């Protein structure tokens, strides 16, 4: 019995040490890959941040209103550095996944494969959000300026509606990219968009009937009760 116990103990310990010996190279490789990820991520962060600064990316963000939006969220870091940091974490996360796969654990490998398959969707969703955000800011400012210069009432409201519509559209497109409840998001978007448009039409047609009448009359009738200016600006 003693022999059996000793054999079992030694056998288990052997199996354990064999497993540890099998696992150790993988662990070492994982640690090395993580360290490499840190270095590559840091170098890329420094390089990209510097390149963006040289390309006056911060100034472009400033002129597009991105810096102001970040400021409102109490983020004071320059956008070039922010993007550099984002890249660092993306690179580090990718290396971390590769490191985990070096451990050779089955379910981790499946998770990693799914992560790398999903990554392009996350990136394209982020890109869609960024473009949508820039477009929303640009077009809402253009709408505001156009409305002010044309003397249209409530220019800020018009600008806000333009901005919201584009942001909602880009948000829905980003969710669609991420494949998050695609059909529900699409249906919700169509319903919400339709409701907003119908609401605006009703508000303009019922609430602003007189305003609508005046606007249409002014558009269709070349005669005007306003005194035309005798100016020739050029």
């Amino acid at each position, binding site marked *: 019995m003693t022999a059996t116990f000793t054999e079992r103990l030694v056998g288990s310990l052997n199996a354990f040490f064999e497993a540890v010996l099998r696992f150790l190279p993988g662990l070492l490789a994982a640690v090395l890959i993580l360290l490499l990820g840190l270095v590559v991520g840091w170098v890329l962060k420094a390089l990209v941040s510097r390149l963006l600064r040289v390309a006056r990316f911060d100034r472009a963000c400033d002129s597009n209103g991105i810096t102001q939006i970040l400021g409102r969220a109490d983020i004071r870091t320059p956008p070039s550095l922010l993007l550099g940091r984002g890249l660092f974490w993306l690179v580090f996360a990718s290396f971390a996944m590769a490191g985990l796969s070096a451990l050779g654990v089955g379910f981790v490998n499946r998770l990693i494969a799914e992560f790398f398959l999903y990554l392009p969707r996350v990136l394209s969703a982020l890109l869609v959000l960024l473009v949508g955000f820039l477009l929303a800011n*640009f077009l809402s*400012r253009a709408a505001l300026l156009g409305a002010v210069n044309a*003397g249209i009432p409530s220019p800020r409201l018009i600008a806000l509606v333009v901005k919201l519509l584009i942001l909602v559209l880009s948000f829905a497109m980003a969710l669609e990219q991420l494949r998050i409840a695609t059909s529900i998001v699409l249906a919700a978007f169509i319903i919400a968009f339709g409701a907003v448009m119908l609401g605006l039409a009703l508000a303009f047609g019922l609430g602003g009937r007189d305003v609508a009448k005046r606007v249409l009359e002014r558009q269709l009738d070349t005669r005007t009760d306003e005194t*035309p200016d*005798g100016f020739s600006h050029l």
Partner: protein
Amino acid sequence: MADLSFLPESLRRQLAEIGQVDVLVGIPSFNNARTIGHVVRAVQAGLARHFPAHRALLLNSDGGSTDGTPDVVRQASIASFETVLAAHPLRAVHRIVTPYHGIPGKGSALRTVFAAAAVTGAKACAVVDSDLRSITPEWIELLVEPVLERGFDFIAPLYHRHKYDGTITNSIVYPLTRALYGARVRQPIGGDFGFSGRLAEHYLGHDVWASDVARYGIDIWMTTTAITGGFRIGQSFLGAKIHDAKDPSVDLSAMLTQVTGAVLSLMGTHAARWREVRGSHPVPVFGFEYAVGLEPVPVNLARMLERFRTGARELGEIWQRALHPATAREIAAIASASDESFVFPPTLWVRTMYDFAVAYQHGRLNREHLLRSLTPLYLGRTASFVVQTRDAGAEEVEQILEELCLEFEREKPYLLERWDETGGGR
């Protein structure tokens, strides 16, 4: 000689057949069938009357008109020279009607005129707009003679205008150009110019024909390039300028954006030059100058002020990114004044324009948006000008404009300081 490969083959052939000319008059056009006949006849009579012994060419550079403009040019002629001339011209005036190649716009049309001047070796040239109703044969003499006989390189027009005509020129383009480059060219974007063959070649040598210069910024570009190139500059008094009604779809904001954008863009190009200029000098004037009529014209002051106040209320965030904080505060303060006591002080206007110039160079805001946001400010300044000059005569109005120009010159150190602070144009 500059690259002339952009000239249409048919035009090259016609120019080769004509050979050398002394005087070339260019008429850019696009759908001007209603008015161009009169312009062609005036040019023809002007050349025959004032330059009968010179070889002359009339070149219509057309942008693909669909209303028969080229046919009108080909057929326009003076029925009887006896009615306009004391003697028969010694030489016939050559006439070419040609489409131009390149980006659609007056700049591309004039590039063809410059190239034709280079090919024919023209000594003196003139360009006149095709929508003019008030052009007379004397305009050709006044634009060409100082170049041909007195050695001038560039002749800008001087017009007889109402005090409320040309307000963009009066409140922005003239004072700014004068303060920047030091030459008192009263109508820098007049559109009707005389220039030497030497200057035409100089224009051709610039690589600007794919930019906004080719579209709409050609007038201020020609004037600025002539000044900064050190050419001999003069002005000719042409009398009244009456042209066909402008396309109503072109709104004030678009017009202001185009004109101001062209001036501010050139400001960046010639920064090294204008930084050294202090004060200004008069430019010789030719022709007989006479007083300006001041018949009352309708002005909707309340609407202008309403647009200005709407701008102050809604565009504060945009203005704050363009204006110095002190300028922005002052503008907010005047926006609350009543209509009758409303004043947009000259110093404040000058600083506003200089702040916009710096913001334009610095690119802190999309340039189109920046310039569009200037419209309410311009209307505020114009409203103030109307209040100030309501009962003023021509001389008094000119004195007020002179004061504004001097203010632009006095405030130039402010522009330089801000330009250097923000690294504009460097």
